[in-house]
């Protein structure tokens, strides 16, 4: 994860006066060490306000809980959703929610880039000899976001006991891959949509459509979607590969749009491609950065 983070903000002197390119950029390991230190400091800071922390944690848990409650309500009204049983949809919700929660914990602070651009404080990130993205991720890290992944994690574990799957090493591997690749894909979506802020500053909500909207979409079998929207989520914004394709493989449902069964294993490929795209877009965006007032 966090692959795109290695892209150090490297603006030329013409694009951002005051920002200089580090002559010897630290490597990934050094970055990780610095990141870990930043994060630890953030956690210590948050921990000073314990009541706030727990109340916020409860809030985050309830946010994920409301999505689950929506699914529960739907299944009190029907027995199956386009051929998917309750536990199967619960699996989708759990896997999608856990991926999203992981990404929310680690990558979602990139959302705040617009705030830093507006305030001009993004400059600070650029003059330090550490990748701007790493700093941004550490700067707004909040442990309370863990509330967002706890509950889907529990749902995932419970659903795995309820669904009928021929468990073998392949199936188990696929579940793990699904969660990890899902987190990377969401992370890439976060980075790409947040990069828009370098051009438009205040379009954070567009990002919400893809990130939070993506999370809702991948919590349901995408067969429910209309054909046009299903194609978009399969081929354009690769949300289907997050949970739907692997789940269809696990539960022996037909894959959409006539995809071969092997497509269920496309997660790592899609994740790698998404991470590369995100990295390129972020680098482009940072190069485009002009400080405020110019």
């Amino acid at each position, binding site marked *: 994860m966090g692959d795109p983070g290695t892209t150090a903000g490297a603006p030329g002197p013409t694009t951002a006066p005051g920002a200089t390119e580090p002559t010897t950029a630290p490597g990934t390991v050094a970055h990780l060490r610095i990141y870990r230190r930043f994060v630890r400091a953030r956690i210590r800071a948050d921990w000073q306000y314990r009541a706030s922390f727990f109340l916020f944690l409860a809030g985050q848990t309830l946010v994920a809980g409301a999505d689950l409650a929506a699914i529960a*309500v739907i299944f009190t009204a029907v027995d199956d959703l386009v051929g998917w049983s309750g536990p199967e949809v619960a699996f989708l919700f759990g896997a999608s929610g856990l991926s999203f929660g992981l990404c929310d914990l680690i990558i979602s602070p990139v959302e705040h880039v617009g705030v830093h651009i507006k305030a001009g404080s993004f400059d600070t990130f650029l003059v330090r000899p550490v990748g701007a993205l790493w700093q941004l991720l550490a700067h707004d890290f909040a442990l309370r976001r863990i509330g967002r992944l706890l509950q889907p994690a529990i749902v995932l574990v419970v659903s795995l006991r309820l669904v009928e799957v021929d468990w073998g090493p392949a199936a188990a591997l696929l579940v793990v891959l699904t969660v990890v690749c899902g987190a990377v894909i969401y992370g890439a979506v976060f980075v790409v949509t947040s990069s828009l802020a370098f051009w438009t500053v205040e*379009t954070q909500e567009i990002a919400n459509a893809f990130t939070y909207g993506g999370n809702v979409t991948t919590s349901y079998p995408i067969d429910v979607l209309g054909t046009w929207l299903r194609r978009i989520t399969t081929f354009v914004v690769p949300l289907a590969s997050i949970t739907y394709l692997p789940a269809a493989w696990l539960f022996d449902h037909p894959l959409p749009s006539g995809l071969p069964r092997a497509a269920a294993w496309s997660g790592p490929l899609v994740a790698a491609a998404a991470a590369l795209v995100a990295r390129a877009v972020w680098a482009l965006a940072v190069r485009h950065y002009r400080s405020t007032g110019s």
Partner: protein
Amino acid sequence: MSLDPPDRHGYRHTPRSPFGGRSAARTRTTTRSGEAHLRLYWEVARATARRMTTYRAATAAGVFTNTIFGFVLSYVLLAVVRDRPIDGFDATDAVTFTFVTQGMLMVVGIFGNEEIAERVRTGDIALDLCRPYDYQGWWAAAAYGRASFYAWARGVPPFLAGALVFDLRVPAAAGTWVAFVVAVTLAIGVAFAWGFLLQLAAFWIIDVRGPSQLGWVAAQFLAGTFVPLALFPAGLEGVARALPFAAMNQLPVEVFLGDRTGGGLLAVYAHQLSWLAALVALGRLVLARAVRKVVIQGG
């Protein structure tokens, strides 16, 4: 906004954005009359609406998001009710419900905001409370001002986008539209009063983001913005219908769908008005308590 000349009552109003940073309106009241106050709230609402028009890109982005959510949630609901309507709630109802809801979210303000809490945290509240206007009234005016902008900028476009793909139910009778506008107006009040209460928690716990999030997610769910109340199990539906949250979304949308006429419509208004009165009164009570415990640094 420029300085308005003294009006015919001889008062000089400087209504500006009531939000952080800039100074709030100063009313030089030589005498205080209800009319002057009404004028102030009117100006606050107008200034807030005008302020909102500045954020064009943000508005477009928001419409996009509401539209995407509208489509996804519509398709999910369609999968549930397409073949088998539940309690008379059919496919057209489902998609119409979803897109009206998406349009109403920002109008009603069901995501909440923390402007008042922020002023408590920074201490700006001390200045606010010195000023000769009703604090709750001021923020209510801002909420209605914002809603008036969102109504056309965020409310209508997602519905139109939905209508391109789905067969949406559009009220034919003018009476239904009027009834709907009244219901939405009351919904804005109920949601505002709920948010006002939540934010007053800042007087006691400073960081209200947690409780605020709890309060609003619960409101969204019980208002039927995730799943319409019609699909809730009977017991839960009964509880949700009794709570104030139904007044924020579920009931106005039912009015739009034409499910509420005559006595049913009156029941909707009675529900909305009684919760509005209760929450507003509770908000005033809590504010009065809170003000007594305000300690300003250095004072």
